[in-house]
């Protein structure tokens, strides 16, 4: 089984420096891309069917295709790497950032070339101190070696690349809010349209891609679209970093074919549940994905299969709910997070999420009423897509509505026993 994204990564070891990375075949994709037309690079990524690994799964080449190209295109154009990774339960990009920073840089430079960007930023979350240090070093090396800056490898193409370390807020992961954060503003989301590809950072054409997405790009260039598609067990190309946290025997992160089933990840790689614990449910791809249950164990973890099963692939890092953990308490924890991290821009989000959090707290404290369930149901609907300015509240509504569906008995017990049965 091929694992292109993690081939240079050994846990606990230093990442490859420039010379080691190049010796292992690194920057060959960049040199190849620079001999191609930008449109050809875009076409290769399109053919590979690479979909965004940040959670939404939007086809990467299609995202790029909205950037104005040619002599009349406004400049500077920007390519931004979203390395904010603040989705609870998600720890996949950290591995790529710390373990092989040159792979990310190469992916960024090739992708920037495809859209003819002039300036690139890595938007990194503040908590990733080690990643910041290693990225700084890799960026300096790439500049010294002529792979960043003016006239890259004699191609005539130039790119400046900067590291921006965020001051911390979940909202920054939303791409338009991220742009505001980079401009030194509060990270409120922006209205779309216009889309960032047309009017993004400082009003200029901008593409925002996730770390894992960008890391796939050099491999597509090196080995071709057919090879990339063959890595996958589904229609979406490539491998995927899958993670498991919670009460399993071996929590961790693995690069596996896209479309590996939940069962295989949970039982073979994470070693199954710890002794004395049973699986009750799971959030498959971070806090903002719908709960799944044991019935779903054979669902393939790819974008379309997960959606068909009523959830989302999200970030592909699953959080396990065991039978000794209170589902209502878990939901309270999740909705507390969303209520706290709401940017306050639109009323349904800041007001609705606070209500949801308060109701769940009441249930946990034994003060729940039967009417609370209806109120939670209506909030799950009203915080869903189409009612709020951005995707934060709809993300919060996903575990809420599925939690109410799968753990109804637990809610009833909280109300009738006037206490949390797990405390």
């Amino acid at each position, binding site marked *: 089984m091929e694992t292109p994204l993690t081939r240079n990564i050994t846990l606990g070891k230093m990442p490859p420096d420039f010379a080691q990375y190049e010796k292992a075949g690194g920057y060959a994709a960049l040199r190849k891309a620079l001999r191609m037309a930008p449109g050809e690079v875009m076409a290769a990524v399109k053919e590979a069917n690479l979909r965004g690994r940040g959670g939404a799964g939007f086809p990467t080449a299609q995202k790029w295709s909205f950037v104005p190209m040619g002599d009349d295109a406004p400049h500077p154009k920007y390519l931004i790497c979203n390395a904010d990774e603040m989705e609870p339960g998600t720890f996949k990009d950290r591995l790529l950032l710390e373990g092989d920073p040159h792979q990310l840089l190469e992916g960024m430079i090739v992708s920037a070339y495809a859209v003819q960007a002039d300036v690139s930023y890595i938007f990194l*979350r503040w908590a990733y101190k080690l990643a910041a240090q290693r990225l700084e070093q890799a960026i300096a090396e790439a500049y010294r070696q002529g792979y960043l800056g003016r006239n890259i490898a004699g191609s005539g193409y130039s790119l400046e690349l900067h590291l921006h370390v965020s*001051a911390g807020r979940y909202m920054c992961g939303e791409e338009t809010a991220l742009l505001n954060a980079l401009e030194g503003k*509060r990270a409120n989301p922006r209205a779309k349209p216009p889309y960032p590809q047309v009017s993004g950072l400082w009003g200029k054409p901008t593409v925002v891609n996730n770390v894992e997405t960008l890391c796939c790009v050099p491999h597509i260039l090196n080995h071709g679209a057919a090879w990339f598609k063959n890595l996958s067990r589904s229609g979406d190309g490539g491998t995927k970093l899958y993670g498991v946290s919670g009460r399993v025997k071996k929590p961790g992160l693995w690069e596996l074919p896209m479309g590996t089933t939940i069962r295989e990840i949970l039982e073979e790689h994470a070693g199954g549940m710890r002794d004395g614990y049973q699986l009750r449910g799971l959030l498959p791809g971070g806090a903002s994905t719908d709960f799944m249950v044991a019935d779903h164990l054979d669902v393939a973890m790819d974008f379309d299969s997960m959606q068909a099963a009523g959830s989302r692939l999200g970030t592909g890092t699953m959080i396990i709910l065991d039978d000794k953990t209170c589902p209502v308490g878990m939901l309270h924890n999740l909705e507390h997070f969303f209520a706290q991290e709401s940017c306050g821009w639109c009323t349904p989000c800041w007001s609705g999420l606070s209500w949801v959090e308060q109701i769940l707290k009441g249930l946990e404290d034994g003060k729940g009423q039967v009417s609370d369930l209806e109120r939670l149901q209506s909030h799950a609907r009203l915080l869903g897509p189409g009612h709020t300015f951005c995707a934060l509240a709809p993300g919060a509504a996903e575990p809420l509505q599925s939690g109410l569906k799968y753990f109804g008995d637990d809610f009833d017990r909280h109300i009738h026993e006037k206490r949390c049965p797990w405390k």
Partner: protein
Amino acid sequence: MLSEQERHEIEAQSHHYPNNRALCIEALKIVQAHRGWVSDEGIADVAEALQMAAAELEGVATFYNMIFRKPVGRHVILLCDSVSCWIMGYDGLREHLHARLGIGLGETTADGCFTLLPNVCLGACDHAPAMMIDSAHYQDLDPAGIDEILAKYQMNEIREEKKEKREPPDGNTADP
């Protein structure tokens, strides 16, 4: 007024951004690194240096979790309260820290050594529960492990205190 050092560090970041406004988050982080937190005076200093309205900068400063607008202790404990850590024992750790330090979330110990803050997911979910103290990550925590970690910081403080007593001040004052 910004110190020479602060001014120099902000200037060194300026080539990453096309205008002063975009530099403001970096500038707030730099002021905080030197002063421990960002006071009203810190806001005024940065606003003046970047030619921004202080009220606008205040809006930015209060938005971000890691800009402290209240004084903090010499060490800031950031206890991850997100879902994986919650499942793996966050409540117990929080209660242990309350008991051990005599402070709740958002509070600072009387000796000014620790401030305890809740924090969203630190990206260490496979090694939950986790926390940070200042820039250092700690994971796979349990109460005994926490005691050991806190003791390390407290020992260092005592050591430094002794060192300060031994070394007479050289008369040069640091940045105001």
